[in-house]
């Protein structure tokens, strides 16, 4: 689900068909500015390129091309890709301008390999990746980094900060563009990207240091050991993604089966999940939290299953409030069997997350609380729109929107309401932009650690 869906985080930007993408003016100016700046920079400082190391540069470019092509989206956050390690190694080994040249060339060419490649995308990606490498390499050198001495303790700081600068810069370029296109807050998007990719990229640093040490101390050909790891990693990632896809499908079908026993709720869980995920992304939640939010939204009414009789009779046996309490408790209890602690909390509070004491639920993470508030709002909206329990009649969407607006800050979290308004306006609920962004195979993207 999440993995193939191009809505997913940064994939949105890279695998959607470009002709129907909306480009605000700032984005339209940003792309040529980045490409132009890097072209000028490259031409102006071309004298500094280490021309004597031409064969090694060529080797790096070729490897980057291969590696940019081989990558997979890691749904737990980030991308399982070999490119960061290679780019970090280039940051260590070459001088800043050479690193800039090698990385931008390799990445831009790698971006043209998929059949769906687009010129501006390849140029922009090459340019921004090269600029990030330049910054990373500058930081590495200015802190006293020296590839020949990488195995000594004083090198630890530069060899960490160089790649980190690269990543943060890279997240900046992509984050800026995506925030403009989604109309979301730039700083929040940037921070969520940095969080999302930090861990996988940190793990690439040792690989890069190892490549650089073997390259400078033993032989240049040692870069090639890097190639051996690729098929192995791809295999495991593929197994994992397959398993995940079939898992999500199974859970969804079982939830749908559960829904059949409740009157008139067909599709409710799926709709709530789709809209919640869209709002979660709008709020800049990281991918792992979005995934939990999707599961929690799918399962939020699972506790109703034991209460079907009371629901049939419209809550005649007991008050609606008692039914609501009972189903959230039961639902949380059912879901507590899963090895994810945040799910039962989200489900337990999905009717009360904002109302009860401003949502100060002790011991809950911030993302869990936001998740519960999102589900609270979306569930209310969907129930009103479709006349589900406790409402007997469907309401007009204008009336529902008015109700949501009036509850901003009292019934619902104001931030969630704002995000909801944006998502609802652009996609009218359901699967926003589902008609403009097709699902494509993962390989079609042609982008890596940031994209």
């Amino acid at each position, binding site marked *: 689900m999440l993995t193939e869906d191009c809505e997913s985080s940064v994939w949105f930007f890279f695998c959607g068909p470009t002709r129907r993408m909306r480009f605000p003016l700032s984005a339209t100016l940003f792309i040529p500015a980045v490409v132009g700046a890097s072209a000028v920079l490259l031409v102006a400082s071309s004298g500094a390129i280490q021309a004597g190391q031409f064969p090694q540069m060529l080797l790096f470019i070729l490897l980057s091309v291969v590696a940019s092509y081989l990558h997979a989206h890691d749904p737990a956050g980030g991308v399982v890709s070999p490119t960061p390690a290679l780019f970090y190694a280039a940051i260590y080994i070459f001088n800043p301008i050479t690193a800039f040249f090698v990385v931008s060339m390799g990445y831009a060419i790698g971006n043209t390999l998929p059949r769906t490649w687009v010129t501006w995308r390849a140029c922009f990606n090459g340019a921004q990746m090269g600029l990030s490498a330049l910054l990373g390499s500058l930081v590495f050198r200015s802190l006293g980094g020296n590839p020949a001495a990488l*195995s000594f303790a004083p090198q630890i700081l530069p060899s960490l900060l160089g790649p980190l600068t690269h990543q943060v810069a890279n997240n900046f370029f992509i984050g800026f563009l995506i925030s403009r296109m989604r109309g979301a807050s730039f700083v929040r998007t940037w921070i969520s990207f940095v969080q999302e990719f930090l861990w996988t990229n940190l*793990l690439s640093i*040792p*690989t890069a240091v*190892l490549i650089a040490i073997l390259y400078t101390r033993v032989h240049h050909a040692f870069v090639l050991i890097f190639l051996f790891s690729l098929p192995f990693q791809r295999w495991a990632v593929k197994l994992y993604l397959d398993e995940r896809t079939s898992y999500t499908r*199974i859970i969804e079908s*079982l939830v749908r089966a559960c829904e059949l*026993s409740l009157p008139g709720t067909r599709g409710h869980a799926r709709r709530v999940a789709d809209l919640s995920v869209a709002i979660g992304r709008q709020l800049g939640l990281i991918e792992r939290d979005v995934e939990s939010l999707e599961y929690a939204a799918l399962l939020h009414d*699972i506790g109703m299953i034991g209460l079907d*009789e009371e629901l049939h009779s419209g809550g005649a046996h007991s008050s609606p409030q008692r039914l609501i309490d009972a189903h959230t408790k039961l639902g949380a209890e059912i879901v507590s069997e899963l090895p994810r602690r945040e799910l039962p909390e989200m489900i337990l509070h999905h009717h009360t997350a904002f109302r009860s004491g401003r949502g100060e639920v002790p011991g809950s993470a911030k993302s869990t609380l936001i998740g519960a508030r999102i589900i609270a709002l979306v569930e209310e909206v969907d129930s009103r729109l479709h006349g589900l329990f406790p409402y007997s009649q469907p309401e007009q969407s204008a009336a529902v929107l008015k109700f949501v607006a009036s509850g901003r800050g009292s019934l619902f979290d104001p931030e969630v309401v704002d995000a909801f308004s944006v998502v609802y306006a652009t996609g009218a609920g359901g699967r926003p932009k589902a008609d403009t962004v097709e699902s494509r195979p993962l390989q079609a993207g042609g982008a890596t650690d940031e994209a």
Partner: protein
Amino acid sequence: MRRKFLWQAAFSVAGGLSLSSALVLSFGTMATHTVWAIATTLLAGLAALVVIPVEPHGFLYLSPVVFLVSSIAFGVGEGVVAAVLAPILAYLASYRTASSSQSVGDVLAVGGEAATSLVVASGLLRILPFAGSRWLDLTLLSTLTLLLSFLLQAVRISSAEGVRLRRLVGPLLRSSAPHLLSLLVGTLLVWAVFSLIGPLGILLTAVVIIELYYPWKLLGDQRDLFLKSLQMISNAVDLKDPYTAHHSRRVSMYAVRMARILDTPEEEVERIRIGALMHDIGKIGVPGGIIRKPSKLTDEEMETMKRHVEAGASIVEELEILNRSTDIVQHHHENFDGTGYPAGLAGQQIPLGARIVFVADAFDALTTDRPYRQGRSTTEALGVLDTNASTQFDPRAVEALKKVLRSTE
């Protein structure tokens, strides 16, 4: 349960003993490079976080890559320290997320097993007449240690799960072999880099290998989540009647053990496990009033109730992985003499899994308390099953259940 406890106790003690003796014996050498000793132990802990699931049961850990190199580079004592502490460190590190289903006993036993294999393997290496290079030493030590810990794991699983060893070793070896081989290659790679650039090489290369193997950990987590989700869904259905909470899970537990006693291949056992978990999934569509009704059902209500097997089969049929168990869900109410529903199959025509699940289902239903009557005792319930054996139940399945109950008492 008792066997498992004994095993854990034995290997926790073995681990503790080898840890303390290793600390005493190699304290002098360790003090000369305290930082590296601590770093390799932490690294082994990080490696132990990468848990590779193997079929049909059990796990491999990445920590041998670190402690094997450490025991050749710095001496066996340090290897043992890292081997015992690695799973404990990994357990502490993942305690907050609680994604692992391991108990403290498991963790201690895993460390104990690793240390025992390492100690035995290095003992064997001394006896064997090879005075070769350190390369040869490392290769032999790694091979022996990995094989020994594989065997220990096989014995542990076989005794804990009640699978016969000969049924287990084949499939287990088939799914472990690629990983064992890559652990060996990984160890040699770490050693190669260590010889080139010193202790930092261990650190860097081990992290590289951990990163490479990380997707396997994700895969393991995903499988765990999958099985737990099935349990969750089946439990949600059971909750339509509060008195049958966890019914499907217990049925699944009985059915798996019965299947093993009947010497079924492990693939079939997995099919039965899922079939038993999902056997009542069709009750989703049956109104709760009928399920909870204390008095006898009317004919019409009985018809509705009977429809749950086919409804369940059609739900399961559409889902890959689950649809291997469709026949179990569909036929778990077929009587042995052919008078059951929905198809009226008799004897060997009924799939073995369905016969097993039928018996387990009946036994659990008989022993559960109801609002209108107390659950029967185990002996009474077995009496009822015996009376109806070969008319309603497969006598072999009833015998298997008796053996299961005897072994768990």
